[in-house]
């Protein structure tokens, strides 16, 4: 559901950068989204096509690059990549303890770059 307001924010940022860079047409936009977030590619594109009509970003393709969840063990410093369904089910691959982790990545939510002419 929040895809609509998220798409509005994406479009605002894209149009701002398009203005600054005197862009005639935006071709593609690359988003970096952590695995912990829910963002449906198909819906984002659908909303974007609708919202960007009559702007320089009309017709631009949204590319989503997912960033995996990476945890760091606070006890031994080992980092490890896990999938969502593995949360809570894995011990540290370094010291074998299950206890104390920090999230290193997986919460990213930003626009990396855009291609334009």
């Amino acid at each position, binding site marked *: 559901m*929040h895809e609509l307001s998220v798409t509005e924010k994406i479009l605002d940022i894209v149009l701002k950068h398009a203005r600054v860079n005197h862009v005639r047409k935006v071709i593609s936009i690359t988003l970096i989204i952590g695995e912990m*977030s829910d963002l449906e590619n198909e819906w984002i594109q659908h909303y974007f096509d609708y919202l960007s009509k009559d702007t320089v970003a009309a017709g631009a393709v949204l590319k989503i690059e997912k960033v995996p969840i990476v945890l760091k063990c*606070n006890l031994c410093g080992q980092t490890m990549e896990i999938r969502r369904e593995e*949360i809570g089910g894995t011990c540290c691959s370094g010291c074998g303890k*299950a*206890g104390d*982790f920090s999230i290193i990545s997986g919460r990213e939510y930003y626009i*990396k770059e855009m291609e334009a002419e």
Partner: protein
Amino acid sequence: MSSVKLIEVKEAIMSDNDAAANDLRKRLSREKTFLVNLMASPGAGKTSLLLRTLAALKPDFNMAVIEADIDSVVDAEKIAATGVPSVQLRTGGFCHLDAAMVVKGLEAIDTASANLVFIENVGNLVCPAEFDTGAAMDIMILSVPEGDDKPLKYPLMFSKCRALLVNKIDLLPYSDFDMILFKQRVYQINAGIRIFEVSCTSGEGITDWTEWLKQSVNRFLEKP
């Protein structure tokens, strides 16, 4: 001939909301108003928990509630019956509150005298997790019937809250909810979270939660 160029953007999608939320947090810090953002699925017990919490902390704080139910005034009426001022924000079908909506809700509240304000966010574990409301503390409820697998499905929400209330523990004997496994899942993505096991029906565990909250608010209010 026009050529294609690559423009580096590197900007957070939520940057405008994050900025508005940080401004609000600074303002409320100056005004000595502790804002709590309460999130949960529909039916997890947000309103019940608020009623219990308001009753327990009424002697200690001047409180108010911002209600963000999608399109009803039922919750606001229940809160109003406690004598604590409440304001109903109609989110018009939106699935979350953002900082600008919270600022609007606060206009109807006398923040000069209120020192503890609760946001009852829209019932949903996905969208509210992405939007910083400007609250000093994010908390959530997960009720036993929802199941112990929810941290796997909604990791972002579980990873960003300072406190988690596991509600409806009176239903544990009738459920296959595995509390140990559940906590293991939560702690792995949020080592610092405080977990309270409560029942808003029986009142079990409520005092542990309200005493902890009271201490957190007092620490905030005493900060120079």
